[in-house]
């Protein structure tokens, strides 16, 4: 069983509840944002467009960050969740360079951190904090089978799945 995120661009309303839920549930320090919702503006008046992307670590099936880490600080659980081990991290930053989305961030301790897929909540049978609070159902987190099924159901909508 491997977990995946789903993000549904059509539904996201840029409310940033996910960002803040992440911060408070995981006590992420100010200045570091495990989840962010950037905006892409497009079009021309009177036909502009706004697209919001709620992004965090994708917990890739083949994590480049993990492959690049020289100390083995980045590891993957059997359920696909990619975690960093602070005790092993030396703060070299190879993972950021290797990650196609430049996800890992330096904390004030000079070490790398990123979304932990709320593994403590997952281990208790709960959903991740960001998914839990998402007001529109734009975010989902589940086994890859379930995520694939949701994707099929929302076939008319634009959906991004973790690579």
């Amino acid at each position, binding site marked *: 069983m491997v977990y995946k995120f789903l993000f549904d661009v059509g539904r996201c309303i840029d409310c*940033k509840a996910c960002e803040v839920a992440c911060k408070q549930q995981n006590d992420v320090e100010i200045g570091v944002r495990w989840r962010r919702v950037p905006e892409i503006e497009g079009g021309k008046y009177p036909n502009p467009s706004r697209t919001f992307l709620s992004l965090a670590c994708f917990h890739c099936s083949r994590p480049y960050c993990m492959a690049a880490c020289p100390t083995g600080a980045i590891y993957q659980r059997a359920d696909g969740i990619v975690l960093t081990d602070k005790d092993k991290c030396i703060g070299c930053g190879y993972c950021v360079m290797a990650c196609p989305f430049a996800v890992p961030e330096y904390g004030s301790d000079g070490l790398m951190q990123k979304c932990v897929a709320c593994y403590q909540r997952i281990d208790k049978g709960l959903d991740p904090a960001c998914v839990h609070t998402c007001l529109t159902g734009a975010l989902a987190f589940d086994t890859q089978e379930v995520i694939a099924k949701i994707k099929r159901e929302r076939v008319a909508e634009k959906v991004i799945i973790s690579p």
Partner: protein
Amino acid sequence: MEVRTNTGCGGARVSRRTFTKLTALGAAAALSGISNVGAYPMEHFDKLIEPAIAAPAEAERIVYGICEMCPFNCGIKVTCEEGVVKSIEGNPNEPHSKGKLCARGNSAEQVIYNPNRVKYPLIRTGERGAGGWKRATWDEALDYVAGKLNEIKGNYGPESIAIIQFPTSRMVPLVGRFQKALGTPNYFTSLGTCKISRVVADIATLGGHILNAVDFANAKYIMLFGRNTFETPATGSVQALSAAITSGAKLVYLDPRYTVTASKADEWIPIKPGTDLAFVLAMMNVIIREGLYDEEFINTYTYGFEELKEFIGEYTPEWAEGITDVPAAQIERIAIEFATTKPAVAHPNWHPKGYESETQISRGILILNALVGNINKPGGIFYPRGVGLGDIKPPAYPEITAKRVDGVPGTYPLVPASHGLWQLLPDAIINEDPYPVKGLIVYRSNPLFGMPDRNRIIEAFKKLDLLVAIDILPSDTAWYADVILPECTYLERDDPPMVIKGKSPKVALRQQCVEPMYDSKHSFWIFKELAQRIGIGNYFDFELDDYINAQLKPLGIDKDYFKENSIWSSDISPELKGLEGMKINTSTGKIELYSKKLEANGYDPLPTFVPPKEAPSGMFRLLHGHIAVHTHANPATFDNAYLNEICSENELWINTETAMDLGIMNGEYVWVENELSRGKIKAKVTEQIRPDAVFMLHGFGHLSPDLTLTYGKGLNDNDFIKAGADPIGGVCPMGETFVRIYREG
């Protein structure tokens, strides 16, 4: 010039994790573990640590309560451990949030553990607004305030003391009790710059205010006239609107600005600001001309259709095209879609568009809903149901003979005195018209920031003998006060219960999660202590628990019920079954398309269109609004480390072509100026706004240096807005604001 910031606010920003550690280690050891402690007087830390140390070590504990970051009061589920709030979620049993919170609700810990909190009572020592304070004990502070109140009352009468309170507080009935016992008519909430005209329109048309009761989830066609649902996030409305869109409802959104809600709409109409009513009237014209109205509903439940029919003849789509900038054919098509797609609903708005004809705009939208017969039916607007709560009967109140200073009800007979028109208070204070107001008690409201024309408010404050701020944070109003009384936050208190009106009413209780930090107190205690000191203690001859239990008594429960249950649910069926058998509280007992109430008070009984003012040449209409992570004027969202990180400064939205004409580049600081003020703000050059209007977010440009996260950032739209009132419903016409924009020089 150096600004003195000595309300004692500020200090090390303690993360909750650090804070937990602090409580575990004990005072001395912990202090050394925090950076920047030198800047933070020892006694603050004693206070900070004391309650948690006193509490026995506890395992995780769940407390259900009510959020208070914005007016919507969503249900919360708080996880506490060892006397500290660990995390927060929505209460899954609460009908609005359904277990989900917005960004603000999620940021609660940055309010309770904000080092900028007012920590103990403060009495001003220097000039007003200069930042000189001395720490006082509660007795000193309360005696000081009571002494001044007695003095003002003796010199000028009780009416010379005004009270401002935030309108969605659970304390409303108790502060109202204080006001009536004191004998002053001058009680205000912030509704004068919010939805007061909508309230008046609802009462005149539907016989009562129906709040946000729009059944989005079941609608197939939704029209929003600037109701930016996704960026003023009531968690329930957001979920319902989002669900409707997902299930294929068509969303038509009118707004001069391409908001987030616009970006999710099937059709965005960048209507000319202030002309929504013309659009609505033209829709009615088409619906009536084509015979697409719900005849049975009109005949059974409405009054004045014939008058409306005659009145509407001239308001053709062609007429509206010239006014709204929307092609007649588009208006015609939308009118037909609206009348033929069932159910279709138009949200009657919340925060006003800000024009003098606001009441009629709101009425127009309500009438539009009535025409298609979609009231109290699934997918329509509906009369929310509530339940009655009990009370502790107060002794007889003294008779209040003095008139209110805002002209309610004399000049504004329809404006409820339970809100008044706060924006008219500064002029009344300055001109002592009709009599001097010398004392002002502000309970967690922020008039200096939230009302228009800040310079005028500061001038008014100078004429006061006493300005008291009861607040959590050193707001701008608190910064200019004589005395600041620190209130505890919504996570540190029980409160009187809340009726959640809706299809089927529920009742929730705010419950204390952790002990109050520092020397902060419950506002009930503060008002009770003040009451005792000014001779009206007999009105507060009970404890808060007694009051909560008295309120809950008609439900057959008491406070303890909420230890086991996260919500109380009534057995009223949530079904919306139309209006049959319902009593409509208008003089005709019907929904009044033609308002007898307006007629009787000398107003236009039909929603005649009044054009907005034209922008003087070289000026742009200034629009203002909201973003999902902030409120209007509540420093709890602006001086909040989590929310500030996301949005710390406002920008001026300028259309790309307009910016090109003015030679303005994206990201540069530009001047905004009109007859009231001048200031600099960062330009956001964008395709997402009409070329004839500019926009800035509410809530920036705070004056209080002790709001260290937000102080000095951005510009306050209110500085450019004149105080005034819609002659019917009273709202301040904030939309009639024009500014010049220019670069350096």
